[in-house]
């Protein structure tokens, strides 16, 4: 097995064009476990963990760009104002995994249990891809086309994700079998967008890919409008609205039974996470968090 060691993105894309079978390795927290287990014997690896172009994040024109090579550790230190993304990062593995693991790797692996993925879905992110001779971007739901299946072409690399910065509270939470180093049984990201007067809810680990709970989103946005909460965060939602929202979120899940949990348990978990996430967001709005 060869390991290619490009120093710049340009060099990396040329190497990938010449050798499309070379498997990119960023933090290696997914790739190396597979290699050590001998589940996979790639002919070549292409180490992209030092490409400066992938290691940057920036804000420009109201958009946020997160390079594929930014680690969870750096997100927690440098992007803590992006609450849901930071909360999701905090739940990935352990400090050692977070010091290596990247959002690009989470996208590349494409497990429905990838904890960064519901956050990108709730932000409605575009995934930016490049090969030696073209660049394109695809929406998050066009990037993952099935369990661990992506729209990535063999000569392409993931550059990063880009989304419009939102004003408003949000959270990521997950349920697992223990508190540390755990793969999600169900995960949920809720983002409130005060300017668009919209709520976006994404679910992880409860379908072949990350899912959005669109009906629940519309329902709760309308309830917030009807109760006047968008203009007056002190206004209460009708008593049964929380439960009705949670039910709609659970209905959006398409879970299966597996070693980590049953479909019924996962659906229940989605409802619990949904109710909590909405409660936190409403409380944060009342306290003026996430407002200028």
């Amino acid at each position: 097995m060869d390991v290619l060691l490009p120093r710049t993105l340009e060099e990396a894309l040329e190497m990938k064009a010449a050798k499309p079978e070379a498997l990119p390795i960023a933090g290696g927290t997914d790739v190396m476990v597979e290699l050590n287990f001998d589940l996979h014997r790639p002919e070549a690896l292409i180490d992209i963990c030092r490409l400066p172009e992938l290691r940057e994040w920036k804000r420009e024109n109201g958009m946020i760009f997160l390079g594929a090579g930014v680690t969870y550790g750096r997100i927690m230190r440098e992007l803590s104002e992006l609450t849901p993304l930071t909360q999701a990062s905090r739940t990935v593995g352990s400090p050692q995994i977070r010091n290596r693991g990247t959002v690009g790797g989470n996208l590349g692996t494409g497990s429905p249990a990838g904890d960064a993925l519901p956050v990108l879905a709730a932000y409605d992110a575009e995934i930016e891809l490049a090969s030696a001779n073209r660049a394109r971007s695809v929406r998050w739901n066009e990037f993952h086309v099935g369990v661990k299946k992506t729209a990535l072409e063999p000569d392409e690399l993931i550059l990063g994700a880009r989304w419009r910065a939102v004003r408003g509270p949000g959270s990521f939470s997950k349920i697992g079998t223990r508190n540390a180093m755990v793969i999600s049984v169900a995960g949920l990201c809720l983002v409130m967008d005060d300017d668009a007067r919209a709520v976006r809810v994404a679910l992880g680990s409860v379908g072949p890919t990350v899912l959005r709970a669109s009906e629940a989103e519309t329902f709760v946005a309308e309830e917030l409008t009807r109760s006047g909460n968008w203009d007056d965060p002190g206004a209460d939602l009708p008593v049964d609205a929380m439960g009705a929202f949670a039910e709609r979120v659970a209905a959006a899940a398409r879970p299966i039974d597996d070693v980590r949990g049953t479909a019924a348990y996962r659906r229940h978990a989605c409802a619990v996470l949904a109710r909590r996430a909405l409660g936190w967001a409403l409380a944060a709005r009342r306290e003026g968090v996430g407002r200028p």
Partner: protein
Amino acid sequence: MTRIEVTVNGVRRDAEVEPRQLLVYFLRETVGLTGTNVGCDTSSCGACTVLLDGESVKSCTLLAVQSDGREVTTIEGMASDGEFHPLQEAFHRNHGLQCGYCTPGMIMAAASFLHENPTPTEEQVREALEGNLCRCTGYQNIVKSILDAAGQMSGVKA
């Protein structure tokens, strides 16, 4: 073979490595530093924790070539001038080990953590050790050792 240049415990090494070689075997077999242990080889146990440019990583799932141009610190790099590092002292004083297999990894994980958070609470220490398993101690004395070391290092009495 690939040529790499890596600084291990302050000493620059130029070496030819197999591209497939894991950092932990480079350290143990090529450099001869056997303090870093392998417990699982799948990123689960933390026994192989070392510092890469000061941050804790699991050397069982890192290729030696990925450390090219970087600085690696292992347990052997903790003592200086024949003096134990305060973490080593504290593990000794508080019986922070029994068989000792997890200890190098625990100390390296703790070193990285205390650099980020020099005055942690017990809760934070426990969280920081989520990637390190110990089958002997029940963690109590490990946590105690790290809190003690934090006190010594930040000059506050623990």
